[in-house]
């Protein structure tokens, strides 16, 4: 059941990504060159809708959360390396797989690079632990950190996102 659900939801997710064109190298590179904000519009719309549903379901006790820990050292160092790689390859892990399916043969090399990168990471993991554990604040949400209601954070996020969308549309980005 778990596997069938994974496959079905993956097909739907991959289809939406493809029709919205966010899997493309052009869209990802143009976003970080601040020329075409398609992927930012897509991502923030998804986060806004998703965050309302996820938090309502969680407050009702219908689902559990799977928070990733706030590890300052690992996220900053990993994030910088990720950004370098993303700018070079123009794909993140999810979009590389979809781009290959769309006929973008060069995405295959991105996938191979990701497999090698994962393998090297797994083998270096014991030595990387000091960085990973540096500044670990544990599994914490934004609203717990600031001691407010989750809906306050969602409201701030909504105002920020809508302001940003308005800016993008007036500037035709």
């Amino acid at each position, binding site marked *: 059941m778990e596997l069938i659900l994974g496959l079905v939801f993956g097909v739907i997710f991959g289809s939406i990504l493809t029709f919205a064109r966010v899997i493309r190298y052009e869209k990802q590179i143009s976003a970080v060159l601040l020329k075409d904000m398609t992927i930012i519009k897509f991502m923030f719309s998804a986060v806004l809708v998703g965050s309302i549903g996820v938090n309502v379901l969680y407050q009702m006790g219908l689902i559990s959360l799977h928070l990733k820990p706030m590890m300052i050292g690992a996220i900053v160092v990993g994030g910088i390396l990720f950004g370098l790689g993303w700018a070079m390859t123009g794909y993140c892990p999810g979009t590389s797989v979809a781009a290959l399916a769309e006929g973008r043969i060069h995405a295959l090399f991105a996938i191979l690079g990701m*497999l090698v990168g994962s393998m090297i990471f797994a083998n270096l993991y014991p030595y990387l632990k000091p960085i990973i554990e540096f500044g670990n604040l544990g599994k914490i949400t934004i609203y717990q950190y600031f001691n407010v209601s989750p809906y306050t954070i969602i409201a701030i996020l909504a105002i920020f996102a809508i302001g940003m969308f308005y800016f993008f549309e007036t500037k035709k980005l």
Partner: protein
Amino acid sequence: MSMKERVLNPYIGGILVGILAILVVYLTTVLIGDTKFFGTSTTFVKMAGLIEKFFVHDLSNQYYEKVKLTIDWQFMFVIGIFLGALISSILSGSFRIELVPPIFRERFGNNFILRAVFAFVGGFFVAFGARLADGCPSGHGLSGMMQLSLGSLLAVIVFFSSAIIFANLIYRSRR
């Protein structure tokens, strides 16, 4: 004879993904008793581990033991993304064999080998960075942000800031 591509407005696409995420967390909790979120980068570790295991039989590796080298929800989700993109790109008319993408061609010429090297080295850093940060734009950017996770907010800010700096260094030609 180019047919007009069928495309989805990014806001509508995003809203659909938000609704899909809500359905996924709810239905997985009800049907399999465990809440599942979107994610992709752990699957690359599993694939790498399965390949390594094929060559090294007595493989002992802490990280592979941590992520467990099994075919799970996320592994099938990634296979689903491939199949969904394949079907949709044919339906939308966007399927096209491409060796060098246009922006790359403009900056570095129509050089497939150079593009392959960039894609490979970039892919290496993407995976290494995502593992260190414990997530990628799916795991942190979508799932983590929807849960309002503090670490995911930091990750998204660092991912974009870093990519903006490096992309401008790489693609903006100095005159």
